[in-house]
């Protein structure tokens, strides 16, 4: 069982959350028009790392906030979790 340290609710089991996928790719700017390569990179291409992975989790069973979480994809250990609306990553 993965335990996610929710910044609002404290440590909670994965069963309270819904996974939202890779959070490492910034969405291309809508101002640049139709940049096919950039959108392909954002929608499809993934680093898929074996190790630390920054990803979204939705805390539906708690604060109902989207979180950004860094989790190791081999050990499932979570290093940090922050509110997805926060601009900066927490101090480690």
């Amino acid at each position, binding site marked *: *069982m*993965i335990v996610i340290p929710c910044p609002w609710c404290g440590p909670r089991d*994965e*069963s309270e959350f819904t*996974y939202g*996928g*890779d959070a490492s790719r910034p969405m291309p700017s809508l101002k640049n028009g139709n940049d*096919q390569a950039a959108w*392909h990179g954002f*929608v*499809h*291409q*993934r*680093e*898929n*790392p*074996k190790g630390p*992975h920054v*990803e979204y989790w939705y805390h539906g069973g708690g604060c109902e906030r989207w979180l950004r979480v860094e*989790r190791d*994809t*081999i*050990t*499932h250990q979570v290093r940090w979790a922050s509110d997805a609306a926060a601009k900066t990553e927490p101090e480690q």
Partner: protein
Amino acid sequence: MTDFKPKYSAWELVKRAWQGDRPWARAWAQVPPKSGYQVVIIGGGAHGLATAYYLARDQGIRDIAVIEKGWLGGGNTGRNTTIIRSDYFLEASARLKEKALQMWEGLSRELNFNLMVSQRGYVDLAHSDGEMEAFVLRANAMRLRGSDAQILDLEALQRRVPQLNIDPMARFPIAGALVQERGGTVRHDAVAWAYARAASAQGVHIIEHCPVTGFEKTGDRIQTVITEKGPIDADHVVVSVAGHSSELARMAGFDLPLESIAVQAFVSEPVKPALDVVVNFNAGLAYVSQTDKGELVMGGGTEGYNSYASRGSLPRIEETAARVIEMFPFAAKLRLMRQWGGIADIAMDGNAIMGPSPVANLTLNAGWGYAGFKATPAVGWALAHSLAKGTPHPLIAPFALARFQSGALIDDGGAGPSPYLH
């Protein structure tokens, strides 16, 4: 290798028993790698070994090494729930899997290896009228393509699978089923062994315990595959690794549109024959069949998040077991005996990626998720054809990596670019 390799047969079995059960020759030769090969196939699972076998049998290419980081068939080949079927709706998916199903039907004889191909029937359950209508559409598509499909209403389904709980007050009541009678199971590790034996007999080198650590490139070509057993030069490289495709692609200098996610399966203690079909529950996902040893083999959906840990989590076991018990209440009395996980690399549309890559002499066979086993013979056959002719075989052409840029996705599940949902 000078070992005399007799054909496997009942006669040979009796003769050997008579002669004091002397040991059998190795099924495939143990050889150190040469300094270079025409084709180096990375990944000694059933897909890689089948590719080698068909390259040798059909295309006259025998200077091949299949290199495997662990032991043959120890990856997803030996971890799946052994199901074969071709009940797909989308044209590209259905054609490839139907070709595979036809090949499974004669494969034991061809490879002289009992693969225990059991066409016991694959029963796909619907839980609503809407789902039944979608099933009818899919069954019609299958029949129009020359495959077999039957739609069973609840009464007919109860006759076909008498053990099934069709209580209308169940949490997810069953409405009917799509049945493919030619579907069933195949002993999965025997597939790796049979292809290895047949490929080895044609001169293919099979090198186990040989992880790849990098590539040496000149321009946009791979010159040398660096392994823990030394460098191996290659005219052509096939990456057929399942799970770790992104890692190999990274070594070769490109990203892939896929994510690695664990999928687990488990078996119950063995019991007397109780279930003679494969049944799939679609409210959530749970598929179950009974092995010849008597264990119920059960599997479910993905773990739901990126993972390279080949083990499963308890919440998923609980979910899957609950669905199995809803289908077959007698299963509640069984104890789970073993549980394991495999790493499935799932592409952004949930379908495989086969064919050319951004590296000129690297061919991909990746992204099979947890749906690759059933396709094994057709994939090996079509990939071998593609490698020899230098152009993708029509069966695998739709699965090109370029589809993610062109937009011609093959999304059987309709789940969009979220591998963890496929």
